[in-house]
Structures are given as C-alpha cells and as structure tokens.
C-alpha cells in the first residue's frame, strides 16, 4: 500500500489512446479500452446503463437468477399431445416461434406452417379455407414461449401434435418442444404438402406414442449429463446434434425393446430417428427453456431468459422484466448457402432454437464443436475465440457443460444485457436459414448475432423500472 489513492496508481484509459502510452512510459500500469459509444451511440442508453453497473439490486437479482439457472435439473419425462399437456393451450390454439406477431405480418414459412397445422388438425379442408379460417380470427396464434414451449424455425405446435415434456426437477417447472421432422420438405420450414402432413400424422399416431412408452419404461432421462457428454463428442447441441442424437438413441432402444412396441412400428421409428442427425435438437431446446424459465422473474435481474425470432422480429426477454419482449427487425443471416441460393432468397432469422445460446450452449459452446468451425472462420482457434468472446457478456460459466479444448472450463452462460450494451459484443447464434417462400425448406446455415437494439431497449426498461422503485412514493 502506497501512493495517492492508497495503492499504486493503475489506470483504465477510456478514450484518447496516447494517454495510456504516457502513463505506461512513466512506469504505471494502464489498460487502454477499445472504447466505442455504448448502445449504438445513444447517450440516453449510455446513461441508463451506467445506473445499472454494479448496482446492488441488479447484482443481487443476477446472483439469484444465475443460481437458479445453474441449479436447474432438466429431466426428459415423456411425450404427450400438446393439447393435453401444454398449459393454456385452447382447442384451436397454434403456437409459433419468436415474439408475438399478427397473422398479417408473419413471414412466408410461418404462414405456410400455420396453414399446414390447420390442415393437419382438419380444421379446414384445403389451404384456401385454412387461410380464411385463420383470417377470421378463429385460430388463436400465440408464441410458444408464452406457454413454456419452444420450437425450431416456424416452431409450430398445434393441439394434437406430440411434444417432449421436460421437467426441471430442482424447481418443478416444465418445458415443452415439438418433435423434429428431419430435413427436406418439413412443416417447420413452411411446407404443408400431403407428404408433410402424412409424416406429421405418423409422428402423432406412431412415433409420439412409441416414444412415450420408451420414456415411461426408462422412468425419465436426466438431460444435463447427456448434453455434457455430447459436448465432449463434438456437438454444440444446436447446429450439430449428431452425438446427442446417437446417445439418446442408445438410451431409447433398450427401453423400446422392453416396452413391447410392435416390430414393424419399431422399425419405422428406428429408421426415422437414425435418419435425422438433429433428432435431439428439440430436446436440447426444451432442456434449455426449462433452465431459463427457472431463472425468470427475478426482480432487478439483467439476465436474458429468452432470445427468439419469428422471421420478422427478433425478441429477447429479461429476468427482471417478466414476460415483456424487447424486439427489433430480425436480421437476414449472412451464412453459407446451398447451391443456387443466396441472401436474397432467405427469410429473416427464424425460430426459438436460439434458446440454446441463451442457455450457454450452441454458438456459446462453439469451442466444443470443431467439426463445424467453418461457420466461424475455419479453424478450431476461431471457435475457441468465439466461445471466449462470449465470456465478456455472460454472468458466469455453467460447470455442467465443460469444454475439453478450454481445459474443461464451463461454457460461458447467463447473458447479461448490461454487458452486451456496454461492450457492443452481441450474442453469437448458430442457425439454419429458411427460404422466404413457404415450403422450399432450408437453404443454408451460418452464424448470426442477436441485434443490439433488443438489449438497449431491455437495459433502458430495467433502469426505468428500478428508478421508479427507488423514487419517493415507490416501493
């Protein structure tokens, strides 16, 4: 202990870089920030943010929320028809991905998928009548997230579709996701042709009940160990689920054989599961959703509890702001495209699957998935840099999900909206790219970033609510 401020002078330099050089030349340590105006250069955002930095109520809220997220224990409990198990699901309710949006503003793939769901439910005889029914307002369209559910791409869940049920046994909350249809012409990319509907019907009548029996036989499946193991086998459990799907299959099959499923059905079920490298994705998403729902609704917390896209808007939710969405236009993904397609054909970013990044896997666990590093620049070092970058916007690490290339540290987890706005580092998201027209399907994949505008709105809103609470007359 010496010096003027009770310790030797050490400086953080914010602004003119030469000042740091002069300080260092005199022998005192100095760090020069690569400073840029926070919050896209809006001074009001910068002010709001400043009031939240190291604020007691926010720190306390985040500690609670992050502990709940980390303590969550997602268990795959079963499969049931959405209408029987998803809370708040009315007779004519269809759930979609992303933040709330009116039918008239929805993107092509989501409209196509909703029409498909109406046909699948036999609420209308053909696409034109389905359109008319939806426009009449007879069908309630609501976000999956509003019902504890998540779905990739269009994220369509209608009452008779089977859904995975994941229970967080630590806190008792449940999360749901639909079953993955595989690639090609599928509902989640907006296709609604007879082959798509036939597949959905088979999934509803054969696959779903078969899976339900297997899980009953197994007595539930702890998901965190399986996800952790998959991360050690090259998955990031968003854009790569090859290992997790294999691990799941290894657990399901013995149970399937014991559960007395007819051989013919089992053969079809086996073909279906083994033919889809992304079969586990929807389970990964429901697990992530259950962990984040456990962390939501903590006063003062700036933890991000959802990031989701509806093909028109990108939205996020904050633990301390309840169910409120903070939205902005969804970006078009500048990724790698299949032959014959380009960004001009792409629908803007779509789907609830970014719940994986929100929970610290997916793009945040890129270091675990060397097989798909081409998305982030081509080398495993780029993947590690990408994961490391996310440590600057997260509250901590999830030790349940360790990363071998980083000496088994946990994945960076718990996005702190304050840090996103303060650093300008936006969450990285691995994503598939849908064609803007319904039914064409996936046309590419790549990396995108959550738009900063969602986080600046969230930060301003949190700051306002805390100011209101602490002002005279407030609580």
């Amino acid at each position, binding site marked *: 202990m010496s*010096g*003027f*401020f009770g*310790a*030797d*002078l*050490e*400086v*953080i*330099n*914010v602004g*003119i870089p*030469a*000042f*740091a050089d*002069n*300080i260092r030349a*005199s*022998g*005192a*340590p*100095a*760090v020069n*920030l*690569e*400073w840029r*105006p*926070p919050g896209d250069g809006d*001074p009001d955002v*910068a002010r709001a*943010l*400043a*009031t939240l*930095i*190291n*604020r007691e109520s926010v720190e306390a809220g985040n500690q609670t929320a992050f502990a709940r997220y980390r303590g969550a224990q997602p268990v795959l409990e079963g499969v049931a028809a959405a209408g029987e198990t998803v809370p708040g699901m009315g007779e004519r309710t269809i759930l979609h991905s992303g933040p709330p949006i009116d039918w008239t503003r929805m993107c092509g793939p989501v409209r196509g998928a909703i029409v498909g769901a109406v046909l699948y439910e036999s609420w209308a005889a053909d696409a034109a009548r389905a359109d008319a029914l939806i426009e009449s307002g007879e069908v309630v369209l609501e976000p999956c997230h509003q019902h504890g559910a998540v779905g990739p791409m269009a994220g369509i869940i209608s009452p008779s579709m089977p859904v995975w049920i994941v229970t967080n046994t630590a806190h008792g909350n449940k999360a749901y996701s639909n079953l993955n249809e595989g*690639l090609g012409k599928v509902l989640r990319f907006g296709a609604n042709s007879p082959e798509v509907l036939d597949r959905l019907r088979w999934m509803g009548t054969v696959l779903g009940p078969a899976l339900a029996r297997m899980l009953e036989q197994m007595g539930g499946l702890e998901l965190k160990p399986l996800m952790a193991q998959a991360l050690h086998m090259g998955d990031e459990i968003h854009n790569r689920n090859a290992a997790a799907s294999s691990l799941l299959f290894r657990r399901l099959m013995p149970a399937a054989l014991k559960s007395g499923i007819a051989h013919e059905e089992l053969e079809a079920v086996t073909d279906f599961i083994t033919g889809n490298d992304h079969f586990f994705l929807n389970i990964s998403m429901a697990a992530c959703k259950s962990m984040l729902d456990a962390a939501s609704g903590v006063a003062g917390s700036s933890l991000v509890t959802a990031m989701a896209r509806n093909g028109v808007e990108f939205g996020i939710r904050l633990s301390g702001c309840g169910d409120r969405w903070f939205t902005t236009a969804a970006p078009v993904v500048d990724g*790698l*495209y*299949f*032959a*014959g397609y380009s960004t001009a054909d792409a629908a803007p970013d779509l789907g609830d699957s970014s719940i994986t990044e929100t929970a610290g896997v997916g793009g945040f666990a890129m270091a675990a998935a060397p097989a*798909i590093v*081409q*998305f982030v620049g*081509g*080398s495993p*070092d*780029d993947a590690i*840099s990408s994961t*490391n*970058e996310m440590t*600057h916007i997260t509250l901590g690490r999830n030790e349940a999900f360790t990363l071998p290339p980083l000496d088994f540290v946990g994945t960076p987890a718990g996005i702190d909206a304050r*840090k996103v706005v*303060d*650093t*300008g*580092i936006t969450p990285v998201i691995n994503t598939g790219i849908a064609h803007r027209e319904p039914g064409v399907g996936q046309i*590419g*994949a790549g990396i995108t970033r959550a738009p900063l505008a969602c986080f600046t709105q969230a930060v301003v809103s949190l700051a306002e609510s805390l100011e209101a609470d602490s002002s005279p007359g407030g609580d």
Partner: protein
Amino acid sequence: MVKVSKVFHNLYRDSVSLMQVSAALADRPGVAQASAVMASASNIDLLRESGLLDGDAGGEHGASDLLIVVEGEADVVESALADAESLLTRESQAHSGSGPTPIAPRSIEMGLHELPGANLALISTPGEYAAAEARKALNLGLNVMLFSDNVTLADEIALKRLAADRDLMVMGPDCGTAIVDGAPLGFANVVRRGAIGAVAASGTGLQQVTCLIDRSGKGISQALGTGGRDLKTEVGGATMLRGLQALARDPATEVIVLVSKPPAEQVATRILEQAADIPKPVVVNFLGTALQDRPAEAVYLAQTLEDAAAAAVALVDGDEPRPAGDSVTPNEPAIDTLIAELASTQRYVRGLFTGGTFCYEALLLLSKTLGPVYSNTPLDAKYALSDLWRSEAHTLVDLGDDAFTRGRAHPMIDPTLRNERIVSEADDPGVAVILLDLVLGHGAHDDPAEQLAASINAARDKAARDGRAIAFVASVCGTGADPQGLEGQESALREAGVVLTVSNAAAARAAARIAAREKQVYT
C-alpha cells in the same frame, strides 16, 4: 453455358466445408452455379431440381462419394473443377498455430478484468457519453479523471456527490491535466517528483505552477485538477476540498498549492477554512480576487501563478515567502532596445494565447497598468471583441476558447490558427507588442517553437517592409524532461528575437512595460 461434373469416390467432407467450396466456385468469373455435395440420393434430387444436374452426369456415384457440379462458360468450368479439387485436398491453411485471438477490452468492466488493481479511470470520450462512463467507473469503485468537456453542470454535481458517497475522487470534467504518483494524466508536463502538492481548477494554471516549481529545482508530489466549475456555488468546491484533504494526508506532500480563477465567495471561504485547519503550509492563488485576510499563519495568498510557485518553493525550503506581487521581471536590456525602435503609432499589446488561464492572468496584469483590454474572454463584458477575428486597441485572445476550437484541434495541438493570426496582427500599425505563451508537455504539438518562430519571422518581415519593428514577448511553460525539451524550444524562440521570460506573469509585465515605454531603471 455448359455443365461439367466430377465424382471423387470415397471422399468425405462435412457439409459446411462443401458449402464453402461451392461458394468459392460460384464466386469465380464466368461460373453461373456450382455445387459440391456428398452424392446422397436426396442431394442428387436437390441438384436435379435446381437444374444443375442433367441425367447421370459424373458417372457412378453413391452416398460416400463427393460430387462437384459446375455450370458456366465453356472456357472456365474445367479450371473451376481443377481448383475445386485443390480446395478439397489442401492442408488446412486457416490454422496459423497462433492460438485463439484475445479480444481487446471494450468496457471499464472488461478493463478491470485485465487490470484488477485499477484505481483510476481516465475518461476522454466525447462529452455526451463521458458522464455515463464516469458513473460506471465510480460504481465500480474507481476514482475518475474526466478529461472530457461538454459535461453538464447537473451531471458534474451528481457525479461528485456519488464520488463523495463512495469516498472517491472525480477530477474534472474538463480536467486537462494532472500528475498522480508521478504519472502524467492527460496533457501533463514531465516534472520532477518532490514535496509540493497542488490542486487546481485551471489546467494551464496547474501546468504553470508545476513547471515553475520544476525550474526552481523542486518537485511535485501530486498535481490534481478539479475542472473549471468546481469552485462555483452549485458544485461547492467538492473536488478541491477532497483534494486538499487527500494532500493533507499524503505523507509525500509537505506544502500545498491551490489555484483557481475567482471562486464563489462562500466556496472560497469554505476552502480557506479547511486550508487553515491543515497542519501543512497552504499557498492559495485565487486569480483575480483581492483576498487580503489570511485565515491562518500557515495560509499564504499569492496574486499570480508565478508568486504561488515561488511561495511554495520558499516554504519547502523552510523560508518565509516574499510578499505577494513582488516578483521581479528578469533584467532584460533588450527591452530598452525594443522600446527605442517603436514608432509613435505603435501603442498596443496583442496577446495571442493557447492557455486560457494565461490569457486571464495577463488580462488582470495588463488592465491594471494599461487600462481597458479587449478580449473574447474579457474581465468586463464592455470590452468583449465585436469580431473575434479582429483585434482592437489592447487585445488578448484565448485561442483555446470554444469559439475558436469548434471543429478543429486545440491550438496547443494544432498551432495553425494562432500562427496565421500572428502574421495578420503585423499589418496593424498600432501594434507595439505581441505577447505569446507556449505550452509543452504530453499531448502538445511535437515542436511548436519551430512553427511559432517561422510565423514570428514572417510577421517581423511584413512589419519591416512598412518600416515598423514589433516586439515579441513570450514564456514557455514546460520542463527539460518534457518530450519537446524546454531548452530547445526556448532557444528557437530566442533566435527569432523573442524576449523570453520564465513565467506568463513576467511576460505580461514585460509587454506592458514595452507598450508603456517604461525603460528599465538600472541600479
């Protein structure tokens, strides 16, 4: 347009690598479409649908074979296929072996991660963001030096309150210079370390005092800035009071100097009261105030920056300071010669300053001896210049004022504006003396004397063509250890025929004498 294809048997590449190859091929001039895929049945269907594949092009293939199809102009498709092969088989070039790239810190929090022992944030962002950065720093337990200007008074008050709550210090806003534990912060001079601590509400005032102390062979323990508004009633001298307390506790500090332009009366009283309570000698220079009553034996009142430095130097040696205002202008026989050369029309002093406090101090001294002095920052609003760009009668201009720096660098950094004005003043037959300051130190121009001397010579030549001789008087505020070097800068000006004094106050007095034609009395 032609389509060609090629099958690589039993060659597996992941779909992302293949999409990269496809994209690289499609980007080539003359190629319309290209696709590299594993030849699974579903991929083949996709290629057929997209029209890229007709019939069984490429021969036999199966799901473990890699198929490349290129459509384009006849002379480019074959070479594209050949390149595709090298793309597929090349060694990984992306891996440089240099490891993951670390990311430079972007926020104060990230900075703290890198430098966990940090105890000060030096903030020089654009003003509209500066208060927010300062608040973050305080919230994270850091002291703050706010170099930025354009911070509102309300923000300044709020930040200083927050700092007081957390037992921290906010220097600024608009605090241009400070020296803490020997480290130069902002635009500071490289001064010797020693036993004199200073707190100043004026940047150039602080530089003048510390440089003069350095010239006297003494040194500085700490030199703290408060920002120019700290001694206003609304702010209440918050930072000067904290600085005073801190220097009182600082074991390295034996003598304290306080510098400010005229403070609010109540604030001045409060500061003097606190100064009186400190068991160390305190030298107070509140420029432009006629304080007479010393609140305590150990509180000394100085009229000029030069006096303040001299008093501190005397006190640190255990001597009693000379009475204020008694400093003597160096014996400069050249002044008599200059007076002799003046034409009868040459009556006026024109001061062109880069330091605001230097301009202010010269205004105080000149108006005492010469009467009304015009300025962009006049003592009396009556004598505000009607046109900033044209001097009248006696005029002193602060070229560092906002009116001149909008959209350009400060004249300490970019002296162009002042150099031009020196030459244009020479056109005025009324000009007797041009009075200048020159500030050295970190952040100032690399070699300001060189260009200043050139402008002085140009002005002198211009006047000479009209048969006039103009006197040039200047002081250099700097030290031998400054990056520019005091000696070299002074000798460049001396070679240009400039009368040099050690302090700004002395320069102002010399200029007044020349304009008033007061010859030196030799004894």
